[in-house]
């Protein structure tokens, strides 16, 4: 039987860990530093030495509440910490300080753009916990433990199973990255492992009016958007095929299982099942006091939340008339979007600026492995370039040349245009001289343009090019076109 005869509905939830952008760890003062020498960013507290006690990092808690607020979650006025017990060499206390039954936030939602529409995904809970260290298995004979990462603050975001496709899962993850960077909650640097994903996937299959559910599969520890999309896509298809091959392959019979993602082969592979999982023996952390949140503190924090990416994108589409795709690209990086709006405020021309951002500045930024904001060009100059282009002072070709100069000089676009002789000539008399000159020198082309219908278009273009050449690129192509048309019409009539 092929899948075409079935009605299938993928049911996907996500568990996402986001590393918070604090200077220090969650329960001690050790600095967070990627790539430091192993075990050089540790102290008795994060090493789990006898007698040490944790102290909560207030900034981490604030960032966490910021993120949960932006995800429209209810913020608990009373929240506590719990110990989650399991033995592993990278966990020096052999318990992780986390939040179990009273997380600081729950019941939110996140709107994610999917194609032309917006998908609302409900958030079950968001809580705060400490990260473990790393076991290094470089040498097969020994396991080395690096505890630099131990105690790093992590936000765990758990969604309801509202996601229905790999593309939606992908969109959720990328949009979340945008959100947390916007909020300053996380650097969300994927290379540094700041975001890790664990999708829960199963499929509801309807055949002959009966609904069958495949086992819920949790794919562990994905650390790229691409692997999220790949794993979800692979799982949906695999589960349907496995069920087709064996109708007892159902949630009822098999329960839940864990699988890992093989990035090279692009498949998921079976791991231990959830029934065999640990009894984590959660209990309230006696070394930390519960956190009580005051209304005033919360109100202050909420007032401080900036416009969210999706709202900003919509506003730019409405106010500046950018296309959805261009607006999304510009909004994708908060600093770039801030620069864009600052350039408009400095007198820039919106649509033209949008075009220049996408067609020119973005390309240059990518070549240099940075964002547009990272190019270091100030808003005033960006705005001026778009304004000069829009009002016809320079033409598009000149704008591109001026922009190149702007990358390595602090001069204004106007100064560059003057220095380089790129100001568009608007003197119609001068342009008429160039047109007449071009007509005189290219009799054959004039002949074709007037009387050869097959070659008319090409000949006209050739003449325009000749005029631009005579003007050294400074003639206004629009006026040149009008002058040529007028002269050709006279010749035809004449």
């Amino acid at each position: 039987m092929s899948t075409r005869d079935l009605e299938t509905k993928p049911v996907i939830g996500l568990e996402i860990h986001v590393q918070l952008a604090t200077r220090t760890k969650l329960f001690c003062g050790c600095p967070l530093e990627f790539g430091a020498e192993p075990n050089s960013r540790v102290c008795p507290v994060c090493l789990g030495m006898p007698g040490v006690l944790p102290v909560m990092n207030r900034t981490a808690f604030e960032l966490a509440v910021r993120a949960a607020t932006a995800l429209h979650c209810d913020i608990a006025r009373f929240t506590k910490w719990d110990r989650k017990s399991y033995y592993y060499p990278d966990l020096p206390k052999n318990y992780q300080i986390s939040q179990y039954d009273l997380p600081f936030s729950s019941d939110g939602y996140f709107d994610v753009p999917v194609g032309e529409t917006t998908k609302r995904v409900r958030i079950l809970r968001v809580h705060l916990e400490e990260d473990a260290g790393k076991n290094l298995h470089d040498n097969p004979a020994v396991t080395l433990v690096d505890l630099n990462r131990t105690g790093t603050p992590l936000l765990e975001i758990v969604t309801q199973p509202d996601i229905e496709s790999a593309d939606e899962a992908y969109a959720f993850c990328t949009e979340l990255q945008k959100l947390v960077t916007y909020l300053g909650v996380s650097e969300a640097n994927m290379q540094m492992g700041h975001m890790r994903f664990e999708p829960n996937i199963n499929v509801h299959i309807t055949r002959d009016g009966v609904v069958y559910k495949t086992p819920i599969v949790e794919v562990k520890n994905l650390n790229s958007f691409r692997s999220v999309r790949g794993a979800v896509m692979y799982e949906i298809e695999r589960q349907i095929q496995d069920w087709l091959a064996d109708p007892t392959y159902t949630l009822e019979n098999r329960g839940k299982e864990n699988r890992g993602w093989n990035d090279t082969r692009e498949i998921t592979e079976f791991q231990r099942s959830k029934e065999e999982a640990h009894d984590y023996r959660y209990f309230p952390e006696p070394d930390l006091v519960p956190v009580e949140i005051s209304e005033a503190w919360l109100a202050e924090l909420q007032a401080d939340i900036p416009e969210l990416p999706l709202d900003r994108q919509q506003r730019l589409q409405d106010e500046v008339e950018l296309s959805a795709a261009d607006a999304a690209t510009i909004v994708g990086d908060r600093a770039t979007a801030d620069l864009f709006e600052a350039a408009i405020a400095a007198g820039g021309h919106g649509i033209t600026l949008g075009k220049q951002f996408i067609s020119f500045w973005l390309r240059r930024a990518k070549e240099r492995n940075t964002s547009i904001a990272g190019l270091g060009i100030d808003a005033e100059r960006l705005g001026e370039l778009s304004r000069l282009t829009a009002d016809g002072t320079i033409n598009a070709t000149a704008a591109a040349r001026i922009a190149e100069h702007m990358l390595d000089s602090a001069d204004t676009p106007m100064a560059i245009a003057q220095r380089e002789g790129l100001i568009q000539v608007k003197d119609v008399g001068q342009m008429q001289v160039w047109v007449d000159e071009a007509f005189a020198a290219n009799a054959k082309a004039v002949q074709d343009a007037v009387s050869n219908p097959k070659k008319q278009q090409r000949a006209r273009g050739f003449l325009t090019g000749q005029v631009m050449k005579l003007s050294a690129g400074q003639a206004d192509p629009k006026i040149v076109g009008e002058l040529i048309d007028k002269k050709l019409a006279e010749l035809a009539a004449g």
Partner: protein
Amino acid sequence: MAALTDIRDAIRSRACSSREAVLACIEAIQACDPQLKAFVSYDGDRAIERAEEIDEQIEQGQPLGPLAGVPIAVKDNLCTSFGYTTCSSKMLEHFAAPYDAHVIQCLNAAGAVIIGKTNLDEFAMGSSTENSGLFQTKNPWDVSRVPGGSSGGSAAAVAARLVPAALGSDTGGSIRQPASFCGVTGLKPTYGRVSRYGLVAYGSSLDQIGPLAQDVRDAALLLGVIAGHDPRDSTSVQHDVPDYVAALDAPLTHVRIGVPAEYFGEGLDPEVRAAVEAALDVYRQRGAELVPVHLPHLAYAIACYYLIATAEASSNLARYDGVHYGYRSEKVTDYVDLYCASRQEGFGPEVRRRIMLGTFALSSGYYDAYYLKALKVRTLIRQDFEKAFEACDVIAGPVAPTPAFRLGEKASDPLSMYLADIYTISVNLAGLPGISIPCGRSADGLPIGLQLMGPHFGEAPLLRIAHEYQRETDWHTRTPPVCANGTKE
């Protein structure tokens, strides 16, 4: 060895030097400790060096801390950046802590000279110091008997006058019960009064560090040095530290002493009862009013305590796994094996028993019936005390049901050992301050203790009322037959 305050004053007035006081201590330890075995470690050279530093400061007229030059001992579950912090366990026998506990920093800042570290029941789990993974400490009043526990080393050392005072820790009675067995004064402060930073955790929500001393005045002096908020311990409370010593001389008017019937019921040794009742009489004669109070949930305190303390212990002691520090088994093949063998070999039987009990109590399916229920009972016990304190200033009763028992007497019966904590653990569950002061002797010549319990952060009045008893009696001045220095009976 004279009392803490006397030595402090003598050093301050240059009647003796810190070096002399420390040397006297070392001599006493050398003479007496081979028999008592109160100390896990002591470092005479280090102590003398430190004493000479203090003497130098005195010489130069520099400002002095409240314990300048005074020798002191600390329980070996308090982390020190010198020597080892063993917790009397094979697991940490060679563990050198990389930092000083908060109370150690307080002692250093006050100018005290830490002489050595005292024996305890392994990881403070026990009531006789027989569970020490290193060796047994003996009661100076009768070396065939236990000193109590778990701060048995500190109590024996103070009782035998090897040191003028010591620090202990109290999770279910571990300061008060050995103080009672050894005839010294021991105070468990309010939970949150003293920072636990650097105290190797047993039951985190119950543990509290406190002084063991010859009398209430010395205990008050020592408490004043170690009490106060510490940002490194989130459960330490920002509450003013009064001058506990000055408060001892405040006038005392109309004291109401609560007497809970539940503390005088079945299982209480008649000699202990008689001594405690005699002590209450002393108060009555001094004009105190004895008020009957009720603590109806006392019967559940032991069960409640052994669920909460062991649950927390099972988690607190998970870190001793042979991976990062401490004892590591040699004969292992993989990491699970490394955990199992290191913990099996590194921990003694009582520690293993409590870890298993606590692990069970927290297990999925049992949590609600055990741990969660214990937390509810704990709330009821706390409310019992709150209600009782509406009618009285302090509550009085025995510290332990019997005087010191014989070595080995209860070692094979952990349950009867647990029952010995009946009168002390409620105070830990309720987070209250409690003090044990000597109030008599059994026919066998063994000390008997009176326990006084106060409301949260009521240390000053509690000490004041305890001090009143010592003004009227001399039990606290008596010294045991095994005594290197001072008056023998």
